[in-house]
């Protein structure tokens, strides 16, 4: 059913994501080498690098999930090619402007650009405008894409069907909602909410910027909105990856397709709700936030883990346990990614506990856990899809050479790189420090371990990159 145009644009997305991924990993390695005092960047240079690294990574793995979901969605409904292309063009323009605002305009407020930092005179005022414009362009492109995919689903399914409500309390409903449709819809809704939150933040920032001091924002409100957007989008992009796994894992393994059951339906509907309240755990150390919201933050974070662990992870284990499966690179990446996602989730739950957050907040424990479920979770979900896609739709032959080497390097690099973060976090080393003061000099050794391991991880990614993009490019230029 997938048409050629969709195949080509998906191939372009994949190549673009992988190119930017290699570039952004390199920025990350440079940051770790600078922290290890092996490279010498100016502090501002380091933070420009950090700003670009964060936003690029969030951006590419979000669009990777979207591109994969869009591609598979075509199996069920007709999606809009123009919206897909529109999003691609806007993403490219947005990313270029973003890099210019940071590397030429010296803008370095971090990817969360927490108010009121962006409005301080630490960089040229054109660069803050350019930065906000670049985010607006990305936001518009992604909003259009999200809404178009939602519309594609809603043209076929009613609201209660798209959320699989007919499966709750009914074992064999007349109309079945495929799990892929359910999870895509839940994720797209979350994405939509987070993008609207981003729009509100941008409007308030623009308003203050152009008001000449007559209007100023409330810092607590802005912080809540920032994490409403930031936390939610980082979380939802993982769920986009899970939608793909629900569709492809059984297929690639040569097993019967997964079906929506009552507990899958309940779990994902609950997830939608819990995930939207979990962002409150970013404000634990803001005593200005009402305590009731702090406690909601801890409960929502805990509760969000239940449906994912008891349903998604358990389903994958059930699907694999003592079952003969055709193991290939794609489903291996899926299962390793699931394992990484869970471990990152445990790290996140530990930090989402208020009394732990008191001594872990904004130490390297924070990047430790989110790199776990991104670099060893979400990235592998998308990489699994990329690999499957490139093999499925290109004519060039598949060689299984170096397969175990690639996986071994990926895991080895990943473990070293993440361990350096976790141990440093437990050792009270703060995050987002370009250089460490004498008291925290231990941070340098951790940074070096992190840099070396990240290079190993990068080697594995480069091998995937060459392999996958070669096939994707051949697909592009094939008739």
């Amino acid at each position: 059913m997938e048409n050629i145009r969709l195949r080509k644009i998906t191939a372009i997305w994949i190549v673009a994501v992988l190119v930017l991924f290699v570039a952004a990993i390199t920025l990350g390695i440079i940051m770790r080498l600078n922290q290890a005092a092996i490279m010498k960047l100016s502090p501002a240079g380091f933070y420009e690098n950090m700003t670009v690294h964060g936003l690029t990574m969030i951006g590419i793995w979000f669009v990777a999930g979207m591109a994969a979901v869009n591609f598979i969605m075509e199996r069920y409904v007709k999606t809009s090619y123009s919206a897909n292309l529109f999003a691609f063009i806007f993403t490219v323009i947005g990313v270029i402007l973003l890099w210019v605002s940071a590397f030429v305009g010296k803008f370095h407020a971090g990817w969360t650009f927490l108010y009121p930092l962006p409005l301080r005179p630490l960089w040229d005022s054109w660069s803050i405008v350019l930065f906000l414009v670049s985010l607006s362009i990305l936001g518009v492109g992604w909003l259009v894409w999200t809404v178009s995919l939602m519309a594609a689903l809603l043209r076929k399914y009613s609201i209660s069907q798209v959320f699989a409500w007919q499966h709750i309390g009914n074992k064999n409903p007349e109309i079945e909602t495929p799990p892929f449709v359910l999870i895509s819809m839940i994720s797209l809704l979350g994405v939509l909410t987070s993008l609207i939150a981003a729009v509100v933040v941008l409007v308030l920032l623009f308003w203050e910027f152009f008001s000449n001091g007559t209007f100023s924002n409330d810092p607590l409100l802005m912080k809540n909105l920032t994490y409403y957007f930031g936390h939610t989008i980082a979380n939802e992009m993982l769920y986009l990856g899970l939608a793909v796994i629900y569709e492809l894992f059984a297929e690639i393994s040569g097993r019967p397709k997964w079906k929506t059951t009552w507990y899958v339906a309940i779990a994902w509907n609950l997830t939608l709700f819990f995930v939207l309240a979990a962002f409150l755990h970013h404000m634990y150390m803001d005593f200005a936030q009402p305590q009731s919201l702090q406690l909601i933050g801890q409960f929502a974070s805990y509760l969000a883990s239940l449906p994912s662990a008891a349903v998604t992870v358990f389903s994958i284990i059930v699907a694999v346990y003592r079952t003969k499966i055709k193991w290939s690179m794609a489903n291996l990446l899926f299962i390793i990614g699931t394992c990484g996602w869970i471990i990152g989730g445990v790290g996140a739950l530990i930090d989402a506990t208020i009394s732990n957050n008191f001594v872990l907040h904004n130490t390297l424990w924070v990047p430790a856990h989110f790199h776990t479920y991104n670099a060893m979770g979400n990235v592998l979900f998308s990489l699994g899809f990329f690999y499957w896609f490139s093999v499925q739709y290109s004519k060039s032959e598949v060689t299984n050479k170096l397969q175990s080497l690639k996986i071994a390097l990926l895991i080895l690099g990943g473990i070293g790189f993440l361990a350096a973060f976790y141990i440093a976090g437990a050792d009270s080393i703060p995050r987002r420090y370009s250089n460490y003061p004498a008291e925290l000099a231990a941070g340098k050794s951790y940074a070096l371990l992190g840099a070396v391991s990240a290079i190993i991880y990068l080697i594995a990614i480069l091998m995937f990159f060459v392999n996958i993009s070669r096939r994707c490019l051949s697909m592009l230029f094939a008739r």
Partner: protein
Amino acid sequence: MFKYAFCTLTLFLSCNLNLTLGQSQQDLREEENIYNQIFNAQLKLTDGKTTTIHGLAEREPLIIAFVFTRCSGLCSPYLLQLKESLRALSRDNSKPYNVLVLSFDPEDSLSDMSYMARQFDLLNDKKWLFAVTNNITSLNKSVGFHPVWNPAIKQFDHDALLVGVNSQGYICKKLFGIRSEKDISLLISSINNEYTPTYQLPSNTNLFSCFKYDPLTGKNKPGFGLLFIALPAILTIVILIGIRIWARPDKKLNSGVTS
């Protein structure tokens, strides 16, 4: 979609919806001497008994008001306001306290103070105590109160000062000037050792605050800004329903959902 509505609702209900406007003024002198022990001055009460500040505070936490009876300015309105505020608060505030009205004028006698108490109709109110002391200089110093005698007008130049003392004899809060009920209530909470982890500084430029601190309950209440947090969720529901209405499914397609 109901989950969204529920989520929004929870955000609102987590603290009851009530906009409170108006902010107390921040006077930096109020931050001085906080959590110092107040000087344990000897007191002579209008009923003839003698005691000490610590002795009184041990019974009930104390609000100390500094006055002098010859005052032709601030003292009367300030005492009257305090009386009215406390009367209004007594309806919904059960926290214990006593008010000690203390003269800082060495010329004042016990009968002057009794006269004052009678004027304010407070002589027989058990919560109100009127007293004089011989240790006023040390006491003034320990609370950061600096009245200055102005011989030209035969009056003290002085601030209206309320000092809150907890039952351990520590200064927990100070209020300068004639203050609102809310501030008085915050004073009562703090002398009862109620801890609130934050307070907001006054600002006139913040149009949209997420929360307004409400001293009556010691909790933050949602402000206009919280609407902005609810906005994304509300808009999402609107868009979801909007798309569905706009993109009505074709019946033919609908029958083939299971494909």
